[in-house]
């Protein structure tokens, strides 16, 4: 018990004193996951939109494919991408393995199904009249598309938060693809894994606290946003 207290005390000290190594790790986490979300969102939204608004052969198959992908474990995603990105793999020439880009790719792969599936659900529930009304009022298809996005913004934001929550806390794919390189690809979850394996619980706890705080914040936002979404309709 005293060991736990001691480690917690040290963790607080690390957080408050602005320990550089610690904040570097946190910065990397946010940078990588932020980029992944930024890159993944536009195409994911488009696919979600296509699934909700277009009728084309194979649509149902795609819908169920994306909801199946939701449940693929991160480690499997990591392994698959590792084999693809390894120098021996088909994408080895991109030289991405053990870089931040590889982590971004891995997190995109993890975020994408969530964004598509939840985005699809949100857009599906949107009123078809939104698109029609915008079009009859002279909006270009592009403007009408953004109108639909605007009208479903709370549902889409919920998808975004859920996806972000998954990738910021994910350890398996980041560890495999990034290699846990200090000051480069060591993010919060991989650092926690490493520090615990080294018996350095203080830093593990400090980082864990950040993740917990983040999880609570994201969840709170999610509830708020979903509540908003319900209110709107």
């Amino acid at each position, binding site marked *: 018990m005293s060991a736990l207290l001691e480690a917690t005390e040290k963790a607080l000290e690390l957080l408050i004193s602005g320990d550089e190594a610690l904040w570097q790790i946190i910065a990397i986490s946010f940078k990588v996951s932020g980029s992944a979300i930024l*890159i993944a969102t536009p195409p994911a939204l488009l696919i979600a*939109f296509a699934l909700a608004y277009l009728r084309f052969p194979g649509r149902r198959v795609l819908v169920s494919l994306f909801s199946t992908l939701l449940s693929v474990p991160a480690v499997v995603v990591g392994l698959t991408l590792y084999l693809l990105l390894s120098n021996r793999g088909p994408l080895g020439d*991109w*030289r*991405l393995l*053990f*870089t931040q880009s590889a982590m971004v790719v891995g997190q995109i792969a993890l975020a994408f199904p969530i964004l598509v599936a939840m985005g699809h659900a949100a857009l599906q529930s949107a009123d078809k009249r939104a698109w029609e009304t915008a079009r009859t009022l002279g909006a270009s298809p592009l403007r009408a*598309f953004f109108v639909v996005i605007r009208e479903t913004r709370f549902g889409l934001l919920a998808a975004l938060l859920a996806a972000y929550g998954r990738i910021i806390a994910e350890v398996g794919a980041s560890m495999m693809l990034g290699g846990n390189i200090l000051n480069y690809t060591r993010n919060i979850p991989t650092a926690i894994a490493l520090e615990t394996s080294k018996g350095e619980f203080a830093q593990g706890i400090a980082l864990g606290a950040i993740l917990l705080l983040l999880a609570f914040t994201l969840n709170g936002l999610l509830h708020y946003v979903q509540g908003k979404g319900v209110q709107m309709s």
Partner: protein
Amino acid sequence: MSYRHIFVRIFSLLLIALSALQFSVAQAGEPQQVIRLATTTSTDNSGLLQALLPHFEKSSGYKVHVIAVGTGKALRMGRDGDVDVVLVHARKAEDKFVKEGFGERRFSVMYNDFVLVGPADDPAGVRGSRDVGDAFRKIARHKAPFISRGDDSGTHKKELSLWKKAGVKPEGQWYREAGQGMGKVLQIAGELGAYTLTDRGTWLAYQEKLPLRIAFEGDPLLFNPYGIIAVNPKLHPHVNHDGAMALIRWMIGKEGQTRIAAFTLHGQQLFKPDAKADEVALLKP
């Protein structure tokens, strides 16, 4: 213009954006100043590399990305050309790696030794054994819990060869493979009151936090040499071979060796520099 048109339009825009991104990634992807070093958890977790590498980075201008895994995985990464240089401790596997042409040449860097650690009360009575084979046989006879790395690391390989030398086939409830790094395995052994084989470096780093003691040490069989090998550029032309050689030259050169000797943990020297004069001479321009 309907959904379909707009979809095609936006999608092609995105493809263009993505390919531009891919291009910029390819451009910035691998600056030649980065050296990717695959090494064992023992060198990284002990803090040795963090004590050495900043000096190398400062004098050479290179940046070293350390990927700490088991020896087996490190060699595999070298074989696949996913890293530029490997620093490992599994002599047999290293020689095979070089012989098969994946690496150019193995250079001796340093050594430390393995120690057998176990619960303070030494339930198998290992303390005072004649040699390491004797100690291992006693553990097996008492069916005292033993945690194996079980991860194809250098330490794991060493442990397996020692069981073989002892003439014991380790199997049964008492023998457990953890599949984890050294530090984790020490923690598990501590929690379960088990014996395990560890490199001295990790042991020194952890001993304070563990209820374990050294049960046996000092047998020459427990000698643990580290070798550094640059990945063969003929096989993988993209590797940063110049960087790898610069790192090797520094590690086995005067500054690297002095700093290895000077590195201490809890007041104890962990690694003994072990560069061979003839190998150093090979690298002189």
